[in-house]
């Protein structure tokens, strides 16, 4: 599904990704871990197509197609979803209205008619129940005045609504209390299937107790320095990241 080859990317003059290689297949859950500033969030943004980053070398293939020239909204139409680490506030635009626009824009891109209002309502009801979201919440302005937990839950709600092929969760666990974390993880687990894939970007092992990854990668200084199974996450929790840093970078 996703194939990243020798990816180098920079912002302004600073090189952040220095040769990432990663392959994600349908049905898989990958966790990407690493210390602050290692390039985890940059990788997420680059996959989603944020323009601040310039790819200097390497490729990203999504379902066999090169993404470099593809606009962010087209990537979304193809089924890439990014749960933002810091979701953005849009005053005056309700969650419902935003979702309606997003879904219909995607449908339009696939040559489909707008989703009928009744079907949309049903979908909203279904997904909000799944994530234990109060309906009143859906009429509030997008992310405006939301608590940290509400923002993250809203991201997962949007993921549920859009049903992406590849979901990248960028530090979705940060700032969540244990109950919220459980709800979010539960939602992700329910949405998981053999046809879609999830990339979890996280700093801590905590989230991985709830969403079991098939693979764990450690990113450091713009490169994946170690890959393994979920045991690697435990090891990291125990030893921290320092022992990895000490290893000579090849």
């Amino acid at each position: 599904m996703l194939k990243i080859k020798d990816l180098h990317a920079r912002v302004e003059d600073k090189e952040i990704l220095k040769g990432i290689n990663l392959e994600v297949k349908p049905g898989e859950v990958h966790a990407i871990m690493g210390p602050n500033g290692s390039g985890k969030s940059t990788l997420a943004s680059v996959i989603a197509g944020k323009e601040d980053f310039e790819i200097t070398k390497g490729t990203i293939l999504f379902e066999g197609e090169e993404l470099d020239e593809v606009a962010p909204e087209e990537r979304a139409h193809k089924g890439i979803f990014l749960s933002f680490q810091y979701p953005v506030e849009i005053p005056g635009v309700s969650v419902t209205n935003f979702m309606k626009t997003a879904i219909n824009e995607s449908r339009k891109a696939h040559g489909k008619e707008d989703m009928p209002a009744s079907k949309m309502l049903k979908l909203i009801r279904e997904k909000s129940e799944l994530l234990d979201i109060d309906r009143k919440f859906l009429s509030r302005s997008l992310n405006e005045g939301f608590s940290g937990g509400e923002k993250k839950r809203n991201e997962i709600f949007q993921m549920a609504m859009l049903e992406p092929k590849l979901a990248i969760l960028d530090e979705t666990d940060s700032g969540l209390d244990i109950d919220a974390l459980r709800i979010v993880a539960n939602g992700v687990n329910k949405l998981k299937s053999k046809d879609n894939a999830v990339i979890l970007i996280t700093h801590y092992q905590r989230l991985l107790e709830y969403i079991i990854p098939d693979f764990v990668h450690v990113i450091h200084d713009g490169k994946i320095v170690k890959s393994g199974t979920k045991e690697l996450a435990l090891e990291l929790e125990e030893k921290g990241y320092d022992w990895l840093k000490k290893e000579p970078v090849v």
Partner: protein
Amino acid sequence: MAYTEEELKKELETKEYEYGFYTDIESDTFPKGLNEEVVIALSKKKEEPEWMTLWRLEAFKIWKEMTEPEWANIHYQKPDFQDISYYSAPNKKPKYESLDEVDPELLDTFKRLGISLDEQKKLAGVAVDIVMDSVSVATTFKKTLAEKGIIFCSISEAIKEHPELVKKYIGSVVPKKDNFYAALNSAVFSDGSFCYIPKGVRCPMELSTYFRINQAGTGQFERTLVIADKGSYVSYLEGCTAPSRDENQLHAAVVELIALDDAEIKYSTVQNWFPGNKEGKGGVYNFVTKRGLCERNAKISWTQVETGSAITWKYPSCILKGDNSIGEFYSIAVTNNFQQADTGTKMVHLGKNTKSTIISKGISAGKSQNSYRGLVQVNSRADNARNFSQCDSLLMGNECGAHTFPYIEAKNKSAQIEHEATTSKIGEDQIFYCNQRGIDTEKAIALIVNGFSKEVLNKLPMEFAVEAQKLLEISLEGSVG
């Protein structure tokens, strides 16, 4: 009146005159120029009674002594008032034989605004040979109103049919000498609407939703008079979301609202006159005086969506004369390309326990300049006056300007006034967030702008709000690369 327009003086430069007037001379058109004879002839042509002719003449005399105001934050070449024809019989002959002859760009806009085919024809000046459904609608409409004793007709008709009402109220809120454009309008107003709601009557429908077509073409000096008698209610819609390609460059309308004790008037406007082309050529100069008077417990609410005109100079105001009266002003002003808008409101608190609310949203794009100018005045006898004002500006691109000039004058210790203003831009992070959810940049901007304007859009009657929302989208198209 406690204040004068002159008090708001502001310096202004002028720029090259870029627009030539062009009037397609029909047989029944006055020669260009303005003098007493023209005013008399105009009044005669409209078969007006003598008092009206004299009223116009007095206004003309006043106008001659006045000079064009220069305090607004707008730059334009002053029109040559002797180069305008002040009377032109309504053009009965259709301009086009079929829609195929109409500018396709215009038709496209109509379509996107969701305007029906029949309406499209009417608006574009195409001959309509089928009997529109709306004619019968109009008849029922008029009947319903008549049953309630509501008078709703053209001001010309009202001058003839209801002289006692017109005589009593015309010029009572906007005096002839109020300002340069109001004086000009008083002398030469072409036509407009008149509305009277009798005591205790609640007007059962939004006035003029249907009439928007019929109202088009009332000329460049429109005069509107709305009187809500004690305890009555009316919601009045003015204007049209469809682009109006009027060939008259100068528009100077006057709107007077009178809300007697316990009455309420809701006045909504969508203005979409031709704003000039992308290079800033042409476009309508819109100089409007709108003012309402509230007696005891009365309420006047102005809502406006301004997207058109090359120049907008407009301050719908409320004189809160009666105790417990309420004034509201909700506005969205969008400027793009080379448009200039200087708009806002005046809330004059005279009575006790009077309240006013001002919500103004300015959106500037392209090379446009958008100014909010407002006055909140609390006079010494206006105990417990309350005002809340919020003026937000949204800038798109760095070639445009947003300005706020709020004047606040309080002479009473019990006054409570709050004013807030912010200026912001559409964040790149907001756009990326929308993009990531599959919404393209253009649509994302429309979404964000709608969110920004929501508090005002919500005040519009439902069907108008939907059109206004689309209108915002169209007005800002291509403003962000």
